[in-house]
């Protein structure tokens, strides 16, 4: 089995690739449209703003093959890789991929806790719905986050996390799983999660 990791130039894909390789996976970097064909599962690690990411993917003519792959292959979106699945984001004028219905919003400090933004560091992940990718992972474990924007409403929520407000820290629909946290930077528990993705059968 071959895992593809999407490289659109701005994201730190290397830590994701390294973590997957440390678990014994064969990893290919997907940076041209033709490379989607040879891979069995797809990981989209995102970093930076949604606008520049979508623009870059457009320039690379990667949008259509990416949408095709998202329809048919096990897909893991990480951080911006979760946000880009939505229709839109307050962060940019560019539209998202529209695979998940809804919008991404800036983190709201609803209780005026004088929160530092970005939400950067270790926070607890509350399991709302059972999912294979969380098998062997206890409820309310710490995962590592770095982001300023969130999804707060979707029917696909798997876990939630609180920072200023409650937000969607991971979601799933059929062959798609996406996390706002960085499993590749979440130590042992993060590696367990990635191992579950590697073993995930749809």
């Amino acid at each position, binding site marked *: 089995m071959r895992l593809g990791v999407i490289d659109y130039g701005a994201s*730190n894909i*290397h*830590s994701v690739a*390294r*973590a997957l*390789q*440390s678990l014994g996976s064969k990893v290919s970097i997907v940076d041209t449209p033709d490379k989607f064909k040879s891979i069995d599962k797809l990981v989209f690690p995102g*970093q*930076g703003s949604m606008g520049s990411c979508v623009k870059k993917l457009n320039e690379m003519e990667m949008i259509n093959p990416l949408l095709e792959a998202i329809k048919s292959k096990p897909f893991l979106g990480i951080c911006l890789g979760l946000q880009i699945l939505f229709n839109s984001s307050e962060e940019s004028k560019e539209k998202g991929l529209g695979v998940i219905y809804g919008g991404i919003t800036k983190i709201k400090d609803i209780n005026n*806790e004088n929160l*530092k*933004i*970005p*939400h*950067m*560091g*270790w*926070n*607890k992940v509350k399991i709302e719905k059972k999912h294979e990718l969380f098998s062997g992972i206890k409820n309310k474990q*710490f995962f*590592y986050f*770095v982001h300023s924007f969130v999804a707060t409403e979707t029917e696909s929520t798997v876990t939630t996390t*609180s*920072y200023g407000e409650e937000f969607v820290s991971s979601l799933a629909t059929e062959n798609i799983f996406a996390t706002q946290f960085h499993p*590749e*930077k*979440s*130590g042992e528990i*993060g*590696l367990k999660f990635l191992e579950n993705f590697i073993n995930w059968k749809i």
Partner: protein
Amino acid sequence: MSLAVRIIPCLDVRGGRVVKGINFKDIVDAGDPSEAAKRYDAEGADEICMLDIDASFEERSTTIETVKSIASQVFIPFTVGGGIKSLEDIEMLLKSGADKVSINTSAILNPDLIEEASKEYGAQCIVLAIDAKQDGKIWNVYTHGGKNRTDLDAIEWAKKGQDLGAGEILMTSMDKDGTKSGFDNNLYLELSNNLSIPVIASGGAGELSHLVDAVKLGKADALLAASIFHYEEISIKKVKQALRAEGFGVRL
């Protein structure tokens, strides 16, 4: 719900080996960096920091090899600092496996570097490191690993760094570094009250109570220490237990 207080063991590295000095002097060898990083990860470190203490004068290739070696074995956030002068340096370190870079002297010589790096790679991966020494009521900023005094006020410089796009401030108290007499909590409190980005406190950890006080009195978001963890004087777990006992959130 707030974030867990981060405990960050720091590896001071020179020529591919961990070293540790007192008050920025008297350097002694303290082992292999990737072995130390793995041990810290297993012990529950929330991040790993590696500072190449005189990278400005040395070949970069050793540093890059060390970064790659640590990044392929440790899967928690990893910050690298020392001798970073340009966007090319930053890109090289990020590509080698660093998640964040810590910039000190170069940021003072060229503040645009912070702004450009933050725009290019995001604020989350730009740490502004400051070495400061108290002088009466203010703290002065020093460059070149504590060798050269500047006229900059450390609090003002940190605020400027935040405005330029730094994502975190790593403040080392030169008065306290290596002395094991406790953190300069006044400095950290002053910083925390003036900033909206996280403050990492560094320099002076000797006892468990010092670390707890830096969070309690200094309002530090993260604690960085080298020798107490390296020589196993205090375990990371003990620090976290002590913080939890005081009501602070930790990842245990």
